[in-house]
């Protein structure tokens, strides 16, 4: 297991987990849906098509947030 941080909170996941897996695990507690979010991996936004191939490491910082569309 490794520890990483999702929106500043520690999360324990299997070694070699990818971003897609971490996000799927994290969104329920954040009350968000995968379609609505953008994901930041160590300060870099990762496009959705790359989530499954972005490998997570110990102490990685992940941010999840929703689109804001109002004007």
């Amino acid at each position, binding site marked *: 297991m490794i520890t990483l941080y999702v929106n500043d909170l520690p999360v324990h996941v299997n070694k070699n987990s990818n971003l897609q897996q971490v996000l799927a695990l994290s969104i329920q507690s954040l009350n968000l849906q995968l379609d609505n979010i953008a994901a930041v991996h160590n300060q870099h936004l990762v496009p*959705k098509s790359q989530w499954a191939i972005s490998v997570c490491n110990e102490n990685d910082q992940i941010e999840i947030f929703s689109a804001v*569309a*109002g*004007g």
Partner: protein
Amino acid sequence: MADKGMTETLNDNQFMQYYRQILLSQVSEYGQQKLLNQHVIVVGVGGLGCHVTQQLTAAGIGHIYLLDDDLVELSNLPRQILFDVTSIGKPKAICAAEKVIAMNSDTQVRYFCKKFTYSFAEELLHTNAELQQAHQNGQLILLDCTDNMPTRQLINAWCATHFIPLISASVAAFSGQLLVIDGQVAPQSGCYHCLFGSNANPQGCANLGVLGPTVATMASMQALTTIKHILRLDTELKYLHIFDGLQLSWRQFVRHRDPKCKSCGHWPSQSENQLSSAHQISPKKVNL
């Protein structure tokens, strides 16, 4: 190249009017001329659109195109500052145009009480010779001030197709997001669709509520970003900027292009110019 389509030199009155802007070495008389020759399409004349149009008109942007099919409602007044009680029930695009036309005779304001659709945007670009010329000269920018995701995606796709720089701001509750999308200058940073997919269905101000000053903050940043982009002063094209109105804090994250994006797939892989060198505004001294 820098002088293409630059038709105006400043008269004495303009020199006085824009003196505090011209005083900035990054703007100078040349930069003010660029602003006066610039064409800006503002899509959505709500909270963001009102503020941004007011600021850009005051700054001396030469040509503004307002696009909105909505009518003014009472609940708009706390943040849509170009409207008052006499505007209620009237088209937003017309009311906003009337207000800003009176502000600055240097700004030519055109308005369209239309919803943004791909076909209307095509018609606008291809039937307006001046706009088409501005586009060819690299003097056209579009500002997304709309309030819903489908329109934001549509605007993004249209701008991406035509390589029109898009400055996107959004706001809801106490959150704001701002980004510059430019397929020529920063293709590697991708477009709006690279960031948020078409299936995203975020809530807007109508559901979440919003305060006028939060909207004004985002609109001011959008206006500042627009002026900086016109003057090639921007260095932050790769970022998504996120504002938190409760903490009064900004965060920025590096954007990346989605190699599978359907909106910007035709863009080159690298920038045609290095922003830091080729896009520096040519230095011209102000004669005081």
